[in-house]
């Protein structure tokens, strides 16, 4: 699978990454190289094989609904890049 520069631009936007034009070409080459290797998965006969998303035994984990102490807004927001009292501040969303 060959990845074009346009596709890199599209994927980067989906991933919310900004890649400059000089890097895009390199990234397109590297991704193409990696995906070409991954194409060997097409050789495997997977007809009727169920997919696995992991190995854990999925049981419902239930507990009593008890009151517990919350860390509180100060602890919760302690790492916020920008805050105003108990709120996170982000750049304007609506223009």
């Amino acid at each position: 699978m060959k990845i074009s520069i346009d596709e890199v631009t599209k994927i980067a936007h989906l991933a919310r990454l900004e890649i400059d034009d000089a890097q895009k070409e390199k990234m397109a080459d590297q991704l193409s190289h990696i995906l070409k290797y991954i194409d060997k998965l097409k050789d495997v006969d997977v007809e009727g094989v169920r997919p696995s998303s992991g190995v854990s035994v999925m049981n419902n984990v239930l507990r009593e609904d008890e009151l517990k102490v919350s860390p509180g807004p100060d602890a919760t927001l302690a790492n916020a890049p920008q805050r105003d009292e108990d709120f996170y501040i982000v750049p304007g969303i609506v223009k």
Partner: protein
Amino acid sequence: MDFCELTIARAKKLLFDRQISSFELTTALLDRIEKYDDKIGAFITIDKDLALEQAKKADQNIADNKISGLTGVPIALKDLLCTRGIKTTCGSKMLDNFIPQYDGTVVSKLKENGAVIIGKTNMDEFAMGSSTENSAYKITTNPWNKAYVPGGSSGGSAAAVAAQFCCAALGTDTGGSIRQPASHCGVVGLKPTYGRVSRFGLVSYGSSLDQIGPITKDVTDAALLLNIISGNDTMDSTSARVDVPDFTTAFDQFGKGSLKGMTAGIPKEYLSVDGIDPEVEKVFKEAKKMLEDLGVDVKEISLPHTEYVVAAYYIIAPCEASSNLARFDGVRYGARATDCEDLMDMYKKTKSTGFGPEVQRRILIGTYALSAGYYDAYYGRASQVRTLIMEDFSNAFKTCDLILSPVAPAPAFKIGENMDDPLTMYLTDIFTLSANMAGVPGISVPAGYSSKGLPIGIQMMANRFDEMSLLRAGYGVEKTIQLDKKFPDL
């Protein structure tokens, strides 16, 4: 007495017999770190005062006869394990200022058992890498030869143990990140069964693959540490509800022929992997002979889908990573880019400046593989291949207790050697990835050296929740082997 060479078991004995104090031991290790870590680069964060304060508290507890499993024993932690009040960077600029508000479950367990947290170790950014060269902070060198990498992604933890900066360390393993650096640094590394150890408070990379485990100076210490960190945890829904045995009983009644009755398989597909270094092959054959002498029946087995493991892994892990790392958006914690026009601009600038190249590469692969039109061809198919890999392992463990293999195809490579070719780096993970894909435990035990004096380990894998067999056989290799030198001169 040389404090720095103490294992957990030995340190515990001396501390509990009151022959040494934790303050003396911790001070000696901190002095050694100060003297040599400029050259090794094992640590990102050392909080000297905090470590000494914990040591004093441990000494007080020992004086009061309040002794737990690790009271006063200094342990290093990979810098993706959340430590309350201590910066946790994940080797990334994205988390340069991140101070967790809580301890991860393994950290709580260490603290409850009286351990002294001596520092946070360097790693490949977000655990993505096999050399620790992807850290945003520093290069970690291999203590055996500083021109070489220590392996990765838990390279800082493995180097810290090999350099005798701590009694032991914790690392994490998503595709070999405990076992491969342990092999390259000549120490013991154990990746437990998926679900054996709680992942709560571990910054996630590939959630269906990640597992926390010990990196130690010997196999006994791996069992001691595993005893403490294992167990069900309601904070991790994938944590297994299974009993935790006393892993140190694995070593009872050890002697000649004591591994009689055990069967080990060598996958024929592993022997035909391209590019196995002859020195790795030689060490592997010697270890195999050793196990046979101890009574293990060694035979050839087959893991038919070995050829597809790397390809399936390098779809599944980046898919999970692209999803997990979406949380670093500059809003709730971590870095935020400045001078942003709007929210979208803030997201993009934050992620592009906060993440390094390998992390961005894996996010892009994962995003591509999960995007509309490609999901079935990539993630869907890789998940089906994963089922086949898991079946290979369940079939193999019907006829053997252990699977033997090298850890990596070659000893540690030179710093900078593989940096421009991500695929070549990925291919070196061939022997370790399967254990994560199948969720089985694996151990790396030192088994020899290359002609350049670089350590070479061997890997053993066992069925799910059978860490006991790994520890028994690993102990066998450790007790039989005559290594000229256990630790490097720094």
